[in-house]
């Protein structure tokens, strides 16, 4: 193994790699997934009741609604806009507070409560919004409630879906950049014949694989870091996070080398990626469904990569809590090195005889 040759191949790959569509794909996918899963599905799994208000007289109810936790408040300018929005299910309910509403409530005139409910709103949302609105009206009236209510909360609130989706996005970031990109680069070079040309020079197959692996590992590390940053899941221990991310990036690069050396062409690579996808991505489903038996996730190799990231980034634990997982991930990676060696020899034999 010559360092000079490795650096030369690295320079070539650094110059040509970013021109590949897969490189763009590896960079764009975590961003797109974060947007789609967090913005769309985060609110889909845990929808909040949505209330629109037209306040024509600076009512105290508006301020109280804005301060109420868990209700999405939208202020509108006209009653027509409110009715259209409620009918289109843009809001679950709409409240019109006419000028002098608060004064009328206080002086006992009993003004009309202009509350509109959307036909497509959930029954539970209707109850929440109606009862809350009535309670706020009572507060404006100023009468003391005839009863005290004490809320006794217990148990563990659990993590919101938006947080439990982070491992899924992380896996995409790690494996598209760390595995798919170097594998496709290797296969592309095989198909275009540039790898055969390279291997008739003093450059050895192992040096080419090392370069592809380094590039995959670096890109996977960067993309995993960016993904955690975008999802606000970097945790509070930068060194610990760097260690677990590095072990994950190296693991995915090793997987990429196995796929790249095994695949004769793009078709074979794509088929292998598709069929092995379930094995790679299965553990992330267990984070989405914490009530499932979690030991099953440990049967999948990628669990030992994603779990340390989860524990350090989301649960705020340190390396002392995840050292065993890291050791297992490194052991799996090392066990795959001889496999890569064998596949690399076969590849060299096929390409240059």
């Amino acid at each position: 193994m010559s360092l000079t040759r490795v650096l030369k191949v690295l320079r070539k790959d650094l110059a040509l790699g970013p021109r590949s569509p897969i490189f763009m794909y590896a960079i764009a996918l975590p961003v797109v997934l974060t947007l789609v899963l967090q913005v769309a599905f985060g609110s889909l799994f845990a929808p909040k009741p949505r209330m629109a208000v037209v306040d024509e007289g600076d009512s105290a109810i508006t301020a109280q609604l804005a301060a109420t936790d868990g209700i999405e408040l939208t202020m509108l300018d006209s009653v027509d806009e409110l009715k259209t929005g409620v009918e289109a299910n843009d809001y679950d309910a709409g409240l019109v507070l006419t000028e002098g509403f608060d004064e009328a409530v206080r002086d006992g005139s009993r003004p009309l409560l202009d509350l509109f409910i959307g036909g497509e709103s959930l029954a539970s949302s209707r109850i929440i919004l109606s009862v809350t609105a009535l309670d706020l009206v009572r507060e404006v009236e100023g009468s003391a409630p005839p009863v005290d209510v004490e809320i006794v909360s217990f148990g563990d609130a659990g993590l919101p879906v938006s947080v439990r989706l982070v491992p899924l996005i992380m896996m995409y970031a790690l494996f598209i950049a760390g595995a798919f990109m170097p594998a496709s680069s290797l296969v592309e070079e095989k198909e275009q014949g540039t790898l055969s040309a390279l291997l008739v020079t003093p450059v050895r197959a192992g040096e080419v694989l090392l370069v592809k692996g380094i590039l995959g590992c670096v890109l996977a590390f960067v993309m995993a870091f960016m993904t955690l940053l975008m999802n606000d899941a970097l945790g509070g221990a930068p060194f610990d996070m760097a260690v677990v991310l590095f072990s994950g990036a190296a693991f995915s690069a090793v997987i990429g080398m196995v796929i790249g050396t095994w695949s004769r062409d793009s078709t074979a690579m794509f088929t292998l990626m598709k069929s092995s996808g379930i094995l790679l991505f299965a553990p992330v489903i267990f984070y989405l469904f914490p009530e499932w038996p979690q030991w099953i996730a440990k049967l999948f190799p990628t669990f030992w990569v994603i779990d340390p990231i989860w524990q350090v980034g989301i649960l705020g634990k340190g390396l002392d809590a995840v050292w065993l997982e890291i050791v297992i991930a490194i052991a799996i990676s090392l066990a795959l090195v001889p496999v890569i060696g064998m596949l690399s020899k076969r590849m060299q034999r096929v390409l240059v005889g």
Partner: protein
Amino acid sequence: MSRPVSRAAIVSAIVKKDFVEFSRDKLYIFLSLLGMIFFVLIFWFVPDTVDETITLGMTHGGDLGALVAQFEAGAEGSAEGLALEVFDSPEQMQGVIDGSLELWRADEGDARVIRDKEAGDDKPKDSHRVGVQIGIAFPEGFLIDTATGTRTTVKVYADAAVPPEIQTAMKSFVREIAYGITDNVLPVTEPAQENIILGEDRAGDQVSIREKMRPMISIMILMVEVFSLASLISGEVLNRTVVAVLATPAKIGDFLAAKTIYGTVLALAQAFIVLLAIGAFTAENWFALLVILVIASVMFTGIAMAVGAAGKDFMGTLFYAMAFVLPLMIPAFALLLPGTASAWVRVLPTYGLIQMLNGVTAYGRGIDEYLPQLGISVAWLVAIYVAGLFTLKRKVESL
């Protein structure tokens, strides 16, 4: 000596060749089958009901029996969004809420069992478990005390996972009951019930996520077909087999017509099979659905033509196909979220198609209710198809 051959025969021969080639391409056969099976399985896996009911636990000292009976009688006939479970003691209710006890209800009848799993109680047969996450414990003598002006304290037990808006609403609910007992009328006039609900009242009959997924699944299937056709075209362009085809009596027009027929038939057939498997077709909507599927299939064939002409290899084709198709999937995702889609989503070519698919399959509406969307979709179809045709024609001519 050459025998004259009709254009139809030439086009038919090219289409036949394309289908033979497709049947030999193991990757796309695999992807197409996998996609179809996967989407059908996903569809049936997603829940087909919308849980819009809050199950509320309650304990009282016996003095609120009339109120509970009144509530249950009122809730039976309509979808009130609130289901009531009365417990013997606050401790029992708290146990069910924190999960140390389980509440099971018989599938038929009103029988119910409180199961203590740790004590070794068996799982009741022909029953289902009822989840209770929040409960109200009215103190002994609440009715008399409140009516006579003595302040009492009502405890609301809630699992920490219960959203804050539900906790707040339950607090307000208790206060309103107390106001009712003290004959303290609302300080506002309530509007007439018929004026409150805007739009069709779907309480208890909500459109489920499963039903809303049908348009998304259709688009996904068409997306796989874009990959398939684009890959075939780019292969023909790169391997210059199209030049060989054009050396025969076949003209560019025949080649383009054949690709249009092949792409449309392939996309339409798969979308049809999948929609059939997910129960989208009914006696009333089959014609409307077919019209929408034909428009979508030709539109995606146009995209595949442009992608196939631009792709230089497998990865390039894959990337261009994703770049074109992913934005077109956004209206289908937007459908899963409540409310009107953003203005930029509404101008996407597939928006009208998705609206029609959703209206026809989930709401049982006719296509005549979607004439503006139909017109816009046809306009987009013409624009995209002509652009695809033109791009591929130029590419072929350049060879």
